[in-house]
């Protein structure tokens, strides 16, 4: 075996430039698979990681989600809230209200959304995740204070709004206590265009007692699905409708995201597979040329006693060695590309930690795929070599 490897190695080295190009072809294919999958896993982890922090939360909306749009069907009542408090397994319940409002800054007006809720709950939901760029978060008695999203601060008016600036929200005076960082991914829509108030201030500004959002925390994450179902039924019963409330657990969101990522991964692998097909044509071409060039050598080997099987295995060994080297090089290349992509990704999407995740099975898989490609595409040339008639092969060249 050692000598067969040596023999194959000599012949690979003999055609250095061509072997390097073939190795490169495979390496690029494998690198594409490894880097795309690693970045894909990284993206999934970045998103699900953010979500798992809230795995014990059930979000309850008065409406339904159809495709990408949310259709609001009304609002919850105080009775809904007190009924939910009686469901076992729920640790605490917080309610929020939000609606469109008009904000005025230095005599200019703009439409915005106001979101009010218990400050502690809002803090754990948004402040911990997004962070404040300036100032501080609301306290329970900050009836005249507000914290604004990044777009409200920077985009809504000609002047940038800072801490201690004064705003009129639906003609009521507020002072800016804090400004959010720019929200990423999940939070961009929830935070950036909104103004956050205490629940009492929000009810006052929006002139409403309507509850537009209930957030329930459960003790046991494993029961979340069941409790969500119970919440839905309880509220639907209260309103006499079949599909009024929508209770979503983070678990079900995670599942949805997982599903999306399997599709993304499949597409990425598909792209990489095309690269591999091209690479395997490269191996076949290289090996066929090698067989033709070495017709004479094959004849000599047969003349001195090599059987068809010996010649076949020598050429197969050669193509699998080329592809194995290509696979290993591809893994290294893929690792570097994945690191580079996650670095660039983190730079472009500020605040987002996109760390490529390199799974060992992806690396092993990459090398295995390279080897299979090498054997498959080396088989035809190797067979051709093994079938050569010794006398004609010796006479050749």
């Amino acid at each position: 075996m050692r000598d067969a490897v040596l023999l194959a190695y000599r012949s690979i080295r003999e055609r250095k430039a061509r072997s390097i190009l073939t190795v490169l072809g495979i390496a690029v294919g494998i690198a594409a698979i490894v880097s795309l999958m690693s970045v894909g896993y990284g993206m999934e982890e970045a998103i699900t990681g953010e979500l798992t922090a809230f795995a014990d939360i059930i979000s309850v909306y008065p409406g339904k989600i159809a495709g990408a749009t949310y259709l609001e069907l009304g609002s919850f009542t105080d009775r809904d809230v007190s009924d939910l408090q009686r469901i076992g397994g729920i640790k605490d319940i917080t309610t929020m209200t939000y609606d469109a409002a008009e904000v005025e800054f230095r005599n200019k007006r703009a439409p915005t959304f106001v979101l009010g809720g218990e400050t502690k709950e809002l803090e754990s939901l948004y402040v911990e995740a997004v962070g404040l760029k300036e100032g501080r978060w609301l306290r329970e008695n900050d009836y005249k204070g507000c914290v604004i999203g990044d777009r409200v601060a920077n985009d809504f008016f000609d002047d940038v709004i800072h801490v201690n600036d004064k705003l009129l929200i639906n003609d009521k005076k507020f002072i800016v206590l804090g400004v959010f960082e720019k929200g990423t991914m999940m939070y961009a829509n929830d935070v950036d265009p909104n103004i956050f108030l205490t629940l009492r201030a929000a009810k006052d500004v929006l002139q409403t007692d309507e509850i537009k959002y209930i957030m329930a925390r459960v003790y046991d994450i494993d029961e979340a699905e069941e409790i969500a179902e119970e919440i839905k039924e309880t509220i639907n019963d209260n309103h006499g409708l079949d599909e009024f409330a929508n209770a979503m657990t983070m678990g079900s969101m995670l599942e949805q995201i997982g599903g999306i990522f399997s599709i993304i991964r499949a597409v990425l692998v598909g792209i990489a597979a095309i690269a591999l097909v091209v690479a395997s044509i490269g191996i076949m071409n290289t090996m066929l040329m090698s067989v033709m060039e070495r017709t004479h050598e094959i004849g000599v080997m047969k003349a001195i006693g090599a059987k068809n099987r010996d010649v076949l295995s020598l050429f197969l060994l050669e193509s699998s060695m080329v592809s194995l080297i290509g696979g290993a090089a591809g893994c290294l290349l893929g690792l570097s590309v994945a690191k580079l992509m996650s670095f660039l990704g983190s730079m472009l999407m500020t605040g987002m930690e996109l760390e490529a995740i390199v799974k060992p099975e992806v690396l092993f898989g990459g090398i295995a795929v390279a080897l299979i490609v090498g054997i498959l595409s080396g088989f035809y040339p190797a067979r051709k070599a093994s079938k050569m008639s010794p006398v004609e092969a010796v006479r050749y060249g």
Partner: protein
Amino acid sequence: MIRTEHLTKIYRMGAVEVHALRDVSLEIRDGEFIAIIGPSGSGKSTLLNLIGCLDTPTSGDVFIDGIDTASLSENGLAEIRRKKIGFIFQQFNLVHTLSALENVALPMFFAGVGREKRLKRGEELLVRVGLGERIHHKPSELSGGQQQRVAIARALSNDPGIIIGDEPTGNVDTDAGNAIMDILGGLNREGRTIIVVTHDAEIAARAGRIKRMRDGMVLE
């Protein structure tokens, strides 16, 4: 013993049939040193290829040590070549990526001989043909005569009873040619059957028996 019976080989080149061998019956006893001479196209190489199991006849039989080679599969023929026959070519036909020693060890590799034994025997054989100092040289670093001596060492590696040389001195100068014939003579004295094809009468004169060929036939 080698025996051919009514050996005929016809090559088809498009519509033209070339009778390379016509009804050749020949007997070569064990330990004989036989030279086959004749002009180009007389069929000497074709006969050699058939005796050496590199090619199969159109009709007729080749018996090697009583085995009818026509009944053998490709692998069976490969086995005969490996065990019973050593080839020496006019063009030396060494594998140019391998060193002299590795070339000599190659037939033993195909025969499944262990690495250490191969290298040991390979070195002994190279010493024997006078190349003990050059075992790690590549063919390109050796002269024609030296390459042919490596080829002889390679032909001996599985210790065959028959050595077949197709113009073994055709590509080397006179001195190297004589050296090669000396080695072949020595192998013959060990009891090996030597069959060489040549068109050099001086070389042929060193064989124990000379067969002349013309137009695919052996002349008596």
